[in-house]
């Protein structure tokens, strides 16, 4: 009995198709499970609970601070509290270059970083060195009950600075806005 060549061809193409489907399913399964393992590993490496000091903390009453840079919370919380004629703000003591801790030089009225020599003024503007952006300012608010200043360390103001002849600057009016500035 002679086979119908057309049927044979159909049979062949069906087999080809099924093989293809099988291969796609197989390889797809392998890729999908590898992807799943990858995502799972990444998720595993990101901790859900941090055993670190709280990033929201109180630093006392506004009346505790006079005009100028106050370093009393530097050791414990890595922040400088600054008061000018208009109000108060909190500078984060982390150099924007590579995260070293700058030192405050009251005689020069400058923060200077020991790692690569970045220099900041009391507004946080970059007056020299390789720092690419201005110092962060933390979010601040007043506690409704006891009137203390609450600092939110990880809420950070980071405006785009402009290169000028003086250094990398941000207009003061742009920085002195809520919630990064207290008019007290």
């Amino acid at each position: 009995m002679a086979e119908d060549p057309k049927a044979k061809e159909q049979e062949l193409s069906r087999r080809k198709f099924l093989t293809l489907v099988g291969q796609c399913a197989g390889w797809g399964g392998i890729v999908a499970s590898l992807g799943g393992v990858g995502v799972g590993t990444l998720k595993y490496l990101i901790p859900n609970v941090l055993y670190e000091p709280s990033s929201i903390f109180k630093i006392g009453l506004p009346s505790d601070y006079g005009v100028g840079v106050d370093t009393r919370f530097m050791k414990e919380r890595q922040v400088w509290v600054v008061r000018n004629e208009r109000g108060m703000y909190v500078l984060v003591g982390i150099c924007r270059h590579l995260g070293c801790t700058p030192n405050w030089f009251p005689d020069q009225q400058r923060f200077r970083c020991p790692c690569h020599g970045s220099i900041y003024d009391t507004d946080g503007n970059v007056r020299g060195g390789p720092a690419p952006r201005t110092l962060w300012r933390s979010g601040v608010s007043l506690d409704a009950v006891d009137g203390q200043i609450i600092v939110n360390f990880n809420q950070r103001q980071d405006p785009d600075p402009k290169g000028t002849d003086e250094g990398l600057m941000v207009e003061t009016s742009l920085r002195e806005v809520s919630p990064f500035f207290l008019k007290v």
Partner: protein
Amino acid sequence: MEISALIKNEAEKTRSPEDTVLVWPNLVYIELISILVATASLLFLSIISPAPLEELASADTTPNPTKAPWYFLGLQELLVYFDPWLAGVVLPTMIIIGLIIIPYVDPNPNGKGYYTFSERKFSVAGFSFGLGLWYILIVIGVWTRGLDWSWYWPWSDWHVHMSVTAVKLVDLELIFENMFGLPKEPLVTLGRYGITVANLITWVFFLGYYAVGFTVPFLLFRNFYNKLGLIRYNLVMFFFLSMSGVMLKMLLRLTFNIKYLVVTPWFKI
């Protein structure tokens, strides 16, 4: 690699007994002696120069200066001239990728298995330049950087802060603006990015460096291009120009006080 090549290689390796010697004792003894010398040197160094241990770690004071281990000081020195995303991430990645692709972009069949400069001048010179730059940056980082990461000569007093003369670092954009009196108002604004005329000119300069760098060897050294082919040529030129660009940017900073060549709100080069 194909099997035939493997076999050919195997045959080549055991070509004739006269050219070869037994590994035991010839090679094994060389290895033994070099291991003994290395162990002795390590012991000697360990005794005369113990590992340092500074004060307990504390986040509120940064030692001045803070130095990475010596083999990273080249990168740390680059951080003076480039932003962290470039010096700390992009440039190291490019160095690694550049090293990895070397065997694939070097079609020169000469100089396999013997020292030669005369038969592969460009590759040896290019590699030497990269190494030279890498090592000189390490030398600078280890021996000339002191307090505040300032430059100290061996004969300077390393205990006093450098009194530093006033130097202004400016962006290339500003230099153009002031030199030609270009308008400070942006032509076009893309989100946070206000593109001024001066800004456009800096882009032309930056991209022009690569454009000229790619074109000139193509026009003048066609033979070089033909040997490499389109893809290899572009890869080689890209990495070579970037390597030279690092040097150039450092020199521009030193001679003209240029802080950034190109400025955008998201990244600066």
